[in-house]
């Protein structure tokens, strides 16, 4: 018999090795899948993992794009991970992302065409507030009535989507847009545009915010009493209560924080890469960020890496579609496999294999 025996401490070696092992396994199984689809497996793998970084023709463009794609994922996932650590399941980040984008854009459009340095910061604040407010709905309902936040936050995603469709063909519609839905484009409104901090790097303000959030979360979780309370609430709710932690405040803090970060991510996206509010402006960042959060083991640095890895598979997947004609669905399947292998190999971090009859103490 093979037994799993829990390690007293997570293994540092395995923590570093498992992601590599998972990637290798994904390459093997994914390669078999690509071959079955009649595509050259090695070339497909190289296109996904190598070309976005080093291809002579594409890399100069796609390297910065990695940051553009990873930025919102990391920013949202950081907020979510703090809640997840406390056992608070906000799975409606997509809705908070949408509402942040709407409120932030609304503020920016209200100032149009004022050319002042104050416009963009106000938009960021409004975006954060919009996401925060949307996150507060499940938070307050949970604290006041004990309503389950999973359901409320998920349902609010669909409500936010309906709002988005409504404002983009109504309230925020571009008056010069010839009747078509969609707001003004912030790329044509300098004061409200989320531009690159260093040109050509993909490093826009949202990416900066994501890096700041990583540092902030790291400090919060390892150095701050509030972070300790959050971890304690998740790991041992009863002990937390004895330690004087007010569970309601933890709920409000976590959902508010993740809402605000998701809202900011939405604002940075709408005023930068996306440019405008449109009927289906959201593209699932809020849901993908949940995967990123867990892929990063709810650890700020892990999330940073996971976000970049996820972005790599997206962009590499796009290149593979473009150059090799791989179906889009096979990329999705490939990402799913990667996630599965990462999760599967993760077991070696916390457990070791023991052969023969192990003690079960």
């Amino acid at each position: 018999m093979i037994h799993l025996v829990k390690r007293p401490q997570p293994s540092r070696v395995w923590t570093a090795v498992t992601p590599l092992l998972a990637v290798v396994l994904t390459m093997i199984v994914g390669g078999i899948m690509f071959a079955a689809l009649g595509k050259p497996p090695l070339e497909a793998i190289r296109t996904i993992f190598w070309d976005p970084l080093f291809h002579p023709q594409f890399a100069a463009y796609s390297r910065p794009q990695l940051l553009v794609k990873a930025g919102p994922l990391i920013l949202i996932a950081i907020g979510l991970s703090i809640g997840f650590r406390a056992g608070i399941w906000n799975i409606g980040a997509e809705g908070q992302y949408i509402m942040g984008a709407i409120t932030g854009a609304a503020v920016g459009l209200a100032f149009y065409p004022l050319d002042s340095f104050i416009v963009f910061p106000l938009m960021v604040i409004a975006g954060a507030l919009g996401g925060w407010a949307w996150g507060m709905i499940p938070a307050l309902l949970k604290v006041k009535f004990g309503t389950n936040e999973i359901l409320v936050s998920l349902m609010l995603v669909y409500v936010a989507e309906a709002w988005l469709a409504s404002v983009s063909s109504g309230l925020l519609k571009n008056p010069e847009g010839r009747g078509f839905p969609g707001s003004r484009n912030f790329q044509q409104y300098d004061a409200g545009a989320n531009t690159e901090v260093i040109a050509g790097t993909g490093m826009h303000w949202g990416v900066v915010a994501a890096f700041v959030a990583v540092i902030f979360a790291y400090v919060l979780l390892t150095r701050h009493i509030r972070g300790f309370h959050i971890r304690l609430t998740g790991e041992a709710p009863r002990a937390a209560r004895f330690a004087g932690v007010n569970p309601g405040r933890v709920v409000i803090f976590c959902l508010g924080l993740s809402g605000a970060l998701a809202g900011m991510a939405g604002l940075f996206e709408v005023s930068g890469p996306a440019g405008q509010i449109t009927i289906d402006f959201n593209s699932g960042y809020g849901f993908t960020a949940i995967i990123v959060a867990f892929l990063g083991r709810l650890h700020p640095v892990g999330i940073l890496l996971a976000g970049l890895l996820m972005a790599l598979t997206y962009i590499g997947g796009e290149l593979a579609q473009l150059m090799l004609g791989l179906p889009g669905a096979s990329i999705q399947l490939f990402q799913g496999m990667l996630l599965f292998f990462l999760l599967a190999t993760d077991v070696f971090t916390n457990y070791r294999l023991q052969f023969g009859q192990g003690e079960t103490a």
Partner: protein
Amino acid sequence: MNRRTLLASAALALGLAGTAMAQDDTTKVGFIYVGPVGDGGWTYEHEQGRLAVEEHFGDKVETVFQESVPEGADSERAMTQMALSGADIIFTTSFGYMDPTINVAKKFPDVKFEHATGYKRADNVSTYSARFYEGRAIQGLIAGHMTETNKIGYIASFPIPEVIRGINSAYLHAKEVNPDVEFSIVWAYTWFDPAKEADAANALIEQGADVILQHTDSTAPQAAAEKAGNVITFGQASDMGDYAPMPRVSSIIDNWAPYYIDRVQAVMDGTWESKDTWDGIGPGMVGIGEITDAVPEEVKAEALAMKDAIAAGEYHPFTGPINKQDGTPWLAEGEVADDGTLAGMDFYVEGLTGEIPN
């Protein structure tokens, strides 16, 4: 200058490096799709166009495509990568790709771009769209004749000019042959959600509609009508011929192939120019699927006569007198709607009930 110029020039340098590598004999044609190629509707028909290009030109072209590309930042990246990979002409097939197309086109002045359904052009950006409302007029005519309950159900997607134009056109022509006709409009707020479309069709049928028009892409409403019996439908985007002769009695087919072949040929010949194309039944961009025997002979003849008149340019579906919903005059007797107003249509014509959501 400002930060933006700096950015643009950096990108320009990048772009030149990319296109320089694509100097060979074959013409590379790219397509950006908003949905999966198997959606059976909008994207599916663009994919048919791509396949027709491949068939027509054989070895002289290489086509690439990317499906399910979200509008916004992702589409800008998809286009850029396509241009970097050496595409000579790129078709961007969704309205939401408008600003990204313009942005990317600036960075790649040597690559030709074709944006579907938009209105922004540049030296290397053309726009093209189809006058689906011409097909809607024919549907309206058939629907007006065929309905016995005088109630016509309309499954609409989003309140955008394209959809509103279709509703108005269908209504005007149904009303013309049947003054008692009423339209029930359900906004599904989706282009494609089979289950919801089925529900919407059922709701309309249960409330007495015996004709269902749809401006969403799945065949779910067709199946719902077939199950209900005695309800007729029209294929949307593609022929949906599986449901002929009943419930599907005719269809509007998006036929992009002639245009795509034409434009690719222009690139090969070096005669490509930026222009705005808005073609209808005449040039064949809008096809009318076979009118089945479920439709009485004289109605069919009338419909075909209208089709010919539209194709020949003798009849415009929006010919006055037409009032707006609130009763204010829009087109005087004999006056024909101008393309600008049609392109941005955001009002119902007189007689339609309900409000356009916004």
